[in-house]
């Protein structure tokens, strides 16, 4: 029996990465254009659907039909303040509409063949994510020599709630993947790191590790405990809108001010100039991670042959980003506070995300903790590698090394869970960052005279005012004997099992009857919806396959025509009739291909056979 493979997927906000356990180590799989990471981007053009690098290129040209930043929408309601805020801030230049309370992306597509008319199509965040996952799946299959790959571990941010995790799993199902586990991103990073770590420091137990994840658009901090029997998440914190983009924005603002000062020109109204400046800032930022000083010149920036020449030292760079950098440190501090730990208890600091390469960040961390952060892993790939390690453990492949270091994962609840009580107050039953499985019971009393039933609204979140949090379920317990307020009581038990499923048991103490609910979220897709989406994905795949077949046939025809022409040009006598005949025939074919780029496969193949016939008539062997 062929050995079953399982892949690890880091489905990121801006970039995604896929890795597999091979030859005793996690290996990042390179995509079709040679990238080790793939932009989390899907574009719908006139003729085809593009995913990854090809889609990212379309971003500037077709902003309305190039879908990106979809992770910020996953598992959220349309009225979620974050969705509304992102929508207003122009995070999504494409159309986001409300469909039964959930946000969906609306794309206008032009049909090439069937009907020459525009057609609108709607996609849920799950479907878009499924397209990215499908691309990664294909990438893995090609690397593993077309073995079908179905089993995978997908990482999610530690703060993702049940709904968001289920949405991620649904996306995988639509893409034809079987999710072995949704793993917390910091845990995955620790895993990639922990395997190395435990090898080097055998015998040491109970290490605390801080994961500092500073990416393109988000910042996350997590504190983990690596014990002899596993990894436990102690606390998480972060800012979902803090990242490398902010650093670029600070730099652009700085240079604009300088330009205003020295040249007395306001360039903010000229999008082309701003774009050139923004592009230069990204380069300067990268250079300053290794150089102390750099300069750039933008030719004819002001017109009239006047150039812009600017210089930036690392010191100035650090100064203009001071508040951004310090914000990461203050979030780190408050996360330590959440974990009830002192900074001296942290044994190691692990860096994740591209922005963690900035020297000042590393220095701030070093100054605060009194020790240098660990830099032995590539921050862009570490999460996917951790997922691949976990996947290999779950399906039991690999060599004795990973058996020896097999880790049991203890997850924690990402957000507090509680019940709304009188005055819209939140009565928290399970605090956030509680290791799971866990179980707590609390007693509630009636709040008015002769009350015969109590409605329990279950909320998830950290706000004091219950209605500010996310409502995850609602259940009514009735059958109380009419009596004075506060005389009737009910016990409510919250239980989270090892796989993170929340069940709530209610007990009427008057009658001793019980009622139990499992939290099913209305935000998540129903089974039927998932099924329809799988079917839609299949249709898309069929369309893509057809397109690819047609395109391959076109390439084959073109390649053959060029080959014949080259042969005729190079090998045949100038005056021979065969030369002229062949050149005429190939030119005709090439002109036709130019004007018919989207014909059916059979059409191209037919033309190729015709050309082969022509070649045959001249008794030439090519």
């Amino acid at each position, binding site marked *: 029996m062929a050995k079953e493979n399982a892949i690890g997927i880091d489905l990121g906000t801006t970039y995604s990465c896929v890795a597999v356990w091979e030859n005793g180590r996690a290996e990042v799989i390179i995509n079709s254009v040679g990238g*080790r990471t793939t932009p989390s981007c899907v574009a719908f053009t006139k003729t085809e659907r593009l995913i990854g690098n090809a889609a990212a290129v379309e971003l500037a*040209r077709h902003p309305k039909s190039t879908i990106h930043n979809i992770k910020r929408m996953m598992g959220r309601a349309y009225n979620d303040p974050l969705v509304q805020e992102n929508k207003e801030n122009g995070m999504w230049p494409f159309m986001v509409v409300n469909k039964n309370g959930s946000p969906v992306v609306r794309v206008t597509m032009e049909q090439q063949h069937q009907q020459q008319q525009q057609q609108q199509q709607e996609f849920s965040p799950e479907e878009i994510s499924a397209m990215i996952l499908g691309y990664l799946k294909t990438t893995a299959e090609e690397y593993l020599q077309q073995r079908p790959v179905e089993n995978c571990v997908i990482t999610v941010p530690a703060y993702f709630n049940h709904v968001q995790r289920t949405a991620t799993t649904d996306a995988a199902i639509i893409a034809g993947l079987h999710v072995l586990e949704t793993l917390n991103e910091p845990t995955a990073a620790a895993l990639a790191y922990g395997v190395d770590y435990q090898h080097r420091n055998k015998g040491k137990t109970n290490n605390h590790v801080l994961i500092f994840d500073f990416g393109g658009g988000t910042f996350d901090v997590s504190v983990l405990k690596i014990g002899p029997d596993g990894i436990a998440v102690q606390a998480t914190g972060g800012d979902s809108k803090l990242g490398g983009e902010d650093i670029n924005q600070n730099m652009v603002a700085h240079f604009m001010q300088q330009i205003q000062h020295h040249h007395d020109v306001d360039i903010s109204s000229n999008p082309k100039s701003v774009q*050139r400046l923004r592009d230069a800032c990204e380069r300067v930022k990268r250079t300053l991670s290794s150089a102390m000083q750099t300069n750039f010149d933008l*030719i004819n920036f002001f017109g009239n042959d006047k150039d812009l020449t600017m210089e930036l030292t690392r010191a100035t760079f650090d100064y203009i980003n001071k508040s951004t950098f310090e914000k990461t440190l203050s979030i780190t501090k408050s996360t330590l506070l959440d974990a009830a730990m002192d900074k001296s208890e942290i044994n190691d600091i692990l860096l994740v995300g591209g922005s963690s390469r900035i020297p000042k960040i590393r220095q701030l961390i070093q100054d605060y903790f009194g020790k240098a952060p660990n830099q*032995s892993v*590539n921050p862009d*790939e570490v999460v996917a590698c951790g997922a691949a390690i976990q996947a290999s453990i779950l399906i039991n492949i690999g060599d004795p090394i990973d058996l020896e270091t097999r880790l049991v994962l203890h997850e924690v609840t990402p957000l507090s869970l509680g019940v709304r009580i009188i005055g819209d107050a939140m009565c928290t039953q399970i605090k956030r960052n509680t290791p799971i499985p866990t179980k707590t019971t609390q007693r509630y009393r009636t709040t008015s005279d002769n009350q015969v039933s109590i409605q329990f609204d279950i909320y998830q979140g950290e706000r004091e005012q219950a209605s500010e949090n996310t409502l995850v379920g609602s259940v009514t317990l009735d059958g109380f004997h009419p009596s004075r307020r506060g005389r009737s009581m009910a016990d409510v038990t919250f239980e989270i099992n090892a796989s993170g499923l929340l069940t709530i048991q209610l007990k009427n103490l008057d009658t001793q009857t019980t009622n139990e609910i499992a939290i099913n979220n209305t935000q998540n897709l129903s089974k039927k919806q998932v099924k329809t989406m799988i079917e839609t994905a299949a249709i898309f795949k069929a369309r893509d396959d057809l397109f690819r077949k047609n395109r391959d046939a076109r390439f084959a025809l073109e390649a053959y025509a060029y080959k014949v022409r080259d042969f005729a040009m190079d090998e045949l006598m100038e005056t021979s009739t065969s030369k002229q005949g062949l050149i005429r025939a190939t030119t005709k074919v090439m002109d036709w291909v130019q004007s018919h780029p989207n014909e059916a496969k059979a059409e191209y193949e037919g033309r190729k056979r015709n050309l082969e016939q022509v070649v045959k008539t001249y008794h030439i062997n090519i």
Partner: protein
Amino acid sequence: MKLQYNGGNLKDDQATLESLGILPYSVIVVSGDQVLNEQVQQTASGNEEEVGCLSRIRKIMAESQPLLSRVSYLEQQQQQQQQQQGDGMDAAQQQATKDELLYISEVLMRALLALDGVECPSSFTTARQERRQTVHFCQDLLDRVDGLKSWAQQQQQKL
């Protein structure tokens, strides 16, 4: 110059060998163009790197050059239409023109950004001169495309 390992380009300058999975006896492919002596002598600085800059600039130029004829063609169309003063284009034609203009301006903008990314120290006068010319070429063309864009806009409003 590119470093390749295991079929992928190595992009992270700061990565450790360990994190990239490079072990003893691993094979790393270095790919780049070989510089000829004559080419070096043609540059002002006599530095091999300047040849590299020049070849990058010329490659960008080669990609933008063909756009010139496409812009000229559109301008001819514009003139013809203004002379005739008559009926405009139909909707499909308009859409095609709009798409073409968007495409051209996008390619030119990308060329411009790529040119900004070619780092030429001040001693590389040959490369700098060439870069300056190419930037001007792209910018002039972009201005012409902008002119055509507003014309296309007017046409659409007429319909």
